[in-house]
């Protein structure tokens, strides 16, 4: 049936297939250019590296689907981490209890940053880009001040032992899976799509759109905090520079390459995470085959424009087809 064929190649499937293809190609390039790439250690290391970007891409997926934007992710990640580490190291002897409390504080801090973003955008109707740009600066500033000139002390190694790369990989699989389900399979997730597709219609349909918008920014903040938990384990401390501002480029491109529409209404967490895998992989490829940093940003930027071009072209094409 022609109808079925159109369905198979239309919509998200073609994007998904394309992305899986690109990932396979990337792995092939890596295994040919780098000696002994296909080892267990290398693969698990790569996956663990993907986690922070994937978490932040997960959060921004919710935001992008509502038609919003949040570029404060990495800065919020750094600020929450600094707050939590400052707490953890403020005791004479840091025990396991303090570490657990620290993680909770980290998540709460991320959520609070998100809440502030969300309140400004949902209730005060401020422009998302402006709000989160300001939040990026504020959070970076806060992290710098709290981190102090000499930086924070390190935390006990039990933390890094607990969040080893296998735990991180488990989280990498588990958290996006849950959030993907929330987005696609639950009442709240559907409301996110409704708001992204047409906020006015959603309001008329009796949906409290302000709450949905508020919620997605909180989710975005918390997922940045999750990335913080992983990053703290890697460096055993926290500092403002751990969330370099260019990271947001990786996060947004992960989502966009994954087919999340910057116009709202479309996308999935699953695809954004695959996008994260791809973007981190590309970083690695270029690193390993010795491409200079200057070219790396150039190439990554081109990839984003290319991916967005494809999705825009699809919108254009499907509108041409319409009766």
């Amino acid at each position, binding site marked *: 049936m022609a*109808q079925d064929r159109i369905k198979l190649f239309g919509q998200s499937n073609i994007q998904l297939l394309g992305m899986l293809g690109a990932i396979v190609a990337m792995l092939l390039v890596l295994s040919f250019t780098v000696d002994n790439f296909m080892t267990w250690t290398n693969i698990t290391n790569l996956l663990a590296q993907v986690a922070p970007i994937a978490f932040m891409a997960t959060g921004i997926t919710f935001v992008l689907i509502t038609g919003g934007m949040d570029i404060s992710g990495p800065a919020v990640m750094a600020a929450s981490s600094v707050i939590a580490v400052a707490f953890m190291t403020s005791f004479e002897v840091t025990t396991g209890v303090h570490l657990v409390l620290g993680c909770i504080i980290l998540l709460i801090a991320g959520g609070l940053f998100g809440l502030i973003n969300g309140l400004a955008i949902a209730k005060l109707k401020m422009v998302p880009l402006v709000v989160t740009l300001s939040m990026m600066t504020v959070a970076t500033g806060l992290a710098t001040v709290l981190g102090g000139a000499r930086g924070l002390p390190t935390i006990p190694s039990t933390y890094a032992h607990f969040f080893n790369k296998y735990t991180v990989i488990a989280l990498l699989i588990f958290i996006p899976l849950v959030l993907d389900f929330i987005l696609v399979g639950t009442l709240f997730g559907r409301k996110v799509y409704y708001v992204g597709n047409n906020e006015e219609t959603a309001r008329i349909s009796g949906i409290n759109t302000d709450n949905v918008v508020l919620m997605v920014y909180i989710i975005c903040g918390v997922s940045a905090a999750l990335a913080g938990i992983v990053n703290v384990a890697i460096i055993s401390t926290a500092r403002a520079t751990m969330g370099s501002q260019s990271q947001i480029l990786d996060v947004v491109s992960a989502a966009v390459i994954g087919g999340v529409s910057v116009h709202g209404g479309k996308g999935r967490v699953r695809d954004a995470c695959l996008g994260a895998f791809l973007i981190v992989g590309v970083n690695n490829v270029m690193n390993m085959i010795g491409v200079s940093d200057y070219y790396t940003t150039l190439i990554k930027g081109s990839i984003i424009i290319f991916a967005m071009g494809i999705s825009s072209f699809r919108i254009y094409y499907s509108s041409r087809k319409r009766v």
Partner: protein
Amino acid sequence: MENKLTFQLNNISMTFPGVKALNNVSFSAKQGEVLGLVGVNGAGKSTMMNILGGLLQPDKGSEIIINGEKVKIKNPRVAEDLGIAFIQQEVAAFETMNVYENVLASDFEKWRKKGSLFLNKKAMKVEVAKHLAALDCHIDVEAPTHSLTVGEKQMVQIARALSQGGQILLFDEPTASLSEHETQKLFEIINNLRSQGYIIFYISHYLDEIFKMCDSVVVLRDGQKTGEVPISEINKEKLVDMMIGHFIETAERKVARDKDDVILRVENITGVKYPKNISFDLHKGEILGVWGLLGSGRSELFNTLLGFDKMVEGKILLNQDGELEEIIQKNLYKHVGYLTEGRHYNGVFLDMTIAENITSSDLERFASKGIGILNNKKEKEESRKYMKQVNVKAVDENMIVSELSGGNQQKVIISKWMLKDPDILFMDEPTKGVDVGAKAEIQNLIFDRSEKGVSFVVVSSELEEIMNLCDRIIVIAEGKLVGEVNRDDFSTEALMAGIVK
């Protein structure tokens, strides 16, 4: 017009994946003719217009002949060069620019001063003033476009079409958002253009307009031409018959209501601008009409009552368990449905499936307790049920709403509110932009529901429709309640009396 203008379409076909939108349609028009193009939603009118406008390419074998010359309209620019101009249904204008900039928007290049980067604004203004004067339309050429009324914006669009040297003008539902007065004005202009020798295609759902304005009419049904006749040789019944193949009877409203059973009482509701101090009662199973001219505050009444605009003053009482109790707007909304006037603006989720649209009014019903896992199977089953009840024509419930015709989109919205099954349904222009067949179906649905005890509050700009539909009509002018007419006393005079006063 110097040369004799002729226009001919031969065997136009258009195939979309799986659908033949147009099948071998041929017709012709000659200089100074107003040709009506009618058909129900989905008959292929829009496709035809898009082909003429260069937005779609017809199948091989289709021929478009202008002045005896075979042409290929590859894109809108080519259409423009051939003198085909499109006056759209939803008036498109550059809101932040001036009138004259809008009129000449597509050929700024021509108005550039020689050897300079600047535009010759003086000459532009003179040119535009000339075109507007020809339309007997006195808008300040320097006025910002967003300050114009819908009717004036349409004039700007027509002026733009003429300034581009348009000779073949396509009007797509031009009166849909115009007031009575503006409509009359438009008709004068069209008559004027006719006498000057333009070819005019006129698409409208309002058959009265077709009879009033057109010289002949082409009827499309399911992509085929079912008739091409001079308007003098046909009557309304025959035309409808050609359009839908059979005539759908609208039911007569028969039931008299039990007057005691008030379900909603509104007291002194006042908004920021409109409405002003409006009070009324709504009975169970009643269809209450709200009549007023465009801009009289009809939509504002709904928006204020339902909590989308700010309510400055007023009291709302709802009958719950047999007693009228004051209720806040947020809670009231749980008991009502609201079909809005702007279908695309706030009626449908265009890029989502029919099922997702229908269930959006009461999604909680399909979600589990706690984290709210959706039951997609049940969602689709229920949607199918309502699609069948309301007669939505679509492949299945997974179809994307933007692929449906306007009438079917409207039916999807009605299905959506039927799923919620509210006590009161507010409808703002329920049949706007909907063809005759679907119109009758929608009216019958409203009757049927009201007999089952649902109350309706309906706004309509069509006098005939509102008088046919309602049990009682309240009249609004300048935001104030100026009259109330019962079904037995319905007449145009009675309804207009309050307004003209």
